[in-house]
């Protein structure tokens, strides 16, 4: 059972939102408790009687204030709507009796067209044909639809007859035009509502998927890390796990994959070092002197340095690695140093891609230099240099 409309709330206002001209018709509709479309139809109809509608509109405009807050459309009470309809018809007769009656055809055409449109676009009624087929739609809704279609068809016929007589236009052309217009008017709102439903459904689905993704990610990363931290009793490892998780979470939240959204080389190198630290459980001493912004070239430098750190962590057999960045003028140098077992460069199998591709090729692409200083048993130092 719908809540009934207020008995009579005289609130002379104009709507601010959802208005066509100045919100006058909407304000009256809100006061009367009917749909705004019908009030607009009444104004349109009255407009054809020597412009009375326009005059009334101006009078109401001056006599009302603009209401800022959102409107609440009271539900239409059918009895009142019928009463208002009869009253409006009476007003038309009164005007006719007063001699204010230009042309029955024009007034009735306008009335039929405007009220028919209002009935069909009534947001409380569903799409026309689906609604007629659907037994769940209330009888009133069906009646309103039938009335709307009937009025619209009548209006179109009358209008085409009248215009056809005056201008002697081709009846066929007019019929085609009006049929198209009628179909557009009748189905437009329905199609729009259908599309609206679809997009609402789509955005809801996207929201659901996003929530699922967030849950999955938090489970895979944060929850796992928290579990590891709870089970670990080594503070150093806990700190490493936490640091790594933090940088990964930032990375994910702010969506910049390769360098964690760092905008300075020093920050990016520290993040890369933190990752290697936690992946291999080897502390890295990071020392930076000067700094420079991340760009395409320095990005390559950071990635190459990260690869050098991974190599040192994997192969050097050491318990600490040093990373040194120095920016002096236009020259940027990065050193990855370990005191480990070192290696013989000649002996590195050619299929090992770490040094050749991840370091040398990457630096060569941005015009940088790579020097690797190592000997078996003497530790390793990878020097990366970018000069302008």
């Amino acid at each position, binding site marked *: 059972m719908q809540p009934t409309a207020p008995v009579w709330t005289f609130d002379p206002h104009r709507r601010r939102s959802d208005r066509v001209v100045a919100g006058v018709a909407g304000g009256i509709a809100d006061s009367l408790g009917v749909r705004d479309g019908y009030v607009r139809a009444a104004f349109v109809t009255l407009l054809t009687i020597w412009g009375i509608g326009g005059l009334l509109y101006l009078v109401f405009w001056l006599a009302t204030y603009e209401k800022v807050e959102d409107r609440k459309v009271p539900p239409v009470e059918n009895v009142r709507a019928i009463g208002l309809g009869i009253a409006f018809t009476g007003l038309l007769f009164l005007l006719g009796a007063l001699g204010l009656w230009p042309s029955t055809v024009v007034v009735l055409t306008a009335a039929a067209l405007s009220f028919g449109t209002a009935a069909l676009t009534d947001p409380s009624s569903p799409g026309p044909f689906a609604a007629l087929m659907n037994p769940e739609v209330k009888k009133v809704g069906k009646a309103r639809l039938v009335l709307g279609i009937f009025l619209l068809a009548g209006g179109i016929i009358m209008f085409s007859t009248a215009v056809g007589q005056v201008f002697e236009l081709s009846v066929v052309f007019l019929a085609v035009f009006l049929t198209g217009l009628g179909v557009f008017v009748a189905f437009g709102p329905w199609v729009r509502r259908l599309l609206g439903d679809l997009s609402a459904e789509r955005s809801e689905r996207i929201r659901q998927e996003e929530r699922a993704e967030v849950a999955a990610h938090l489970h895979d990363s944060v929850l796992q890390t928290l579990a590891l931290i709870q089970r670990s009793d080594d503070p150093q490892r806990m700190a490493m796990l936490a640091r790594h998780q933090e940088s990964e979470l930032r990375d994910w939240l702010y969506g910049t994959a390769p360098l964690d959204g760092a905008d300075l080389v020093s920050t990016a190198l520290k993040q890369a070092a933190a990752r290697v630290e936690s992946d291999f459980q080897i*502390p890295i*001493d990071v*020392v*930076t*002197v*000067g700094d420079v912004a991340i760009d395409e070239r320095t990005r390559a430098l950071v990635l190459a340095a990260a690869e050098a750190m991974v190599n040192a962590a994997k192969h050097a057999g050491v*318990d*600490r*690695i*040093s990373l*040194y960045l*120095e920016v*002096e003028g236009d020259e940027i140098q990065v*050193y990855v*140093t*370990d*005191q480990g077992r070192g290696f013989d460069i000649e002996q590195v199998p050619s299929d090992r891609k770490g040094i050749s591709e991840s370091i040398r090729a990457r630096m060569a692409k941005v015009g940088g230099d790579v020097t690797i200083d190592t000997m078996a048993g003497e530790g390793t*130092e990878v020097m990366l240099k970018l000069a302008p």
Partner: protein
Amino acid sequence: MSIKVYLVDDHRLFLSGVRAELDSEFRIVGAAYDVDTAIDEIRALRPTVVLVDVHMPDGGGIAVVEGVTQTNPDVKFLALSVSDQAEDVIAMIRAGARGYVTKTIDPDDLADAIRRIDAGDAVFSPRLAGFVLDAFAGAIPSDEDPELDQLTSREKDVLRLIARGFAYKQVARKLNISIKTVETHVSSVLRKLQLSNRHELARWASKRRIV
């Protein structure tokens, strides 16, 4: 004659760990968890080397260094910290500490650093070397004593190698100089760091704190 070492750190667990590590090689004459006790005991016990934490309540390591140096200028300090705050580290050195190492240093290196401090040398960890290079980078200031306000290229070379993680011995070999010369360079840098009134130093340090 073993070196008399005193420890100051408000972190008891760390303190007991360091104590256990150094006990076999040095004579640990005492330890304190707070600034006031530390100053009193160091004055009374006269250790040769004090290991002091940078961050502590009531003034931190600086208060200890300044408080003791007034009365006992012969006590040598080595700053130990987990802190990456350049400002605090530089402030400790300028207050009189002869070296700075991070708490992640391994026990052998720490023992080595204590011996070096005792011998009157300076101890620069890679991070301190980096701080110094950074602080002394840039244009030559127009001060009354330009020699104090900039590093020589040899000193920079030494600091760079330390920053890259090399021990003094390796630095000496890489530069084809003796360890003694490396130590001389480092001590000279320490002196500049303590005495320079280079205005960039303060500005640089406060800038570092914000970062």
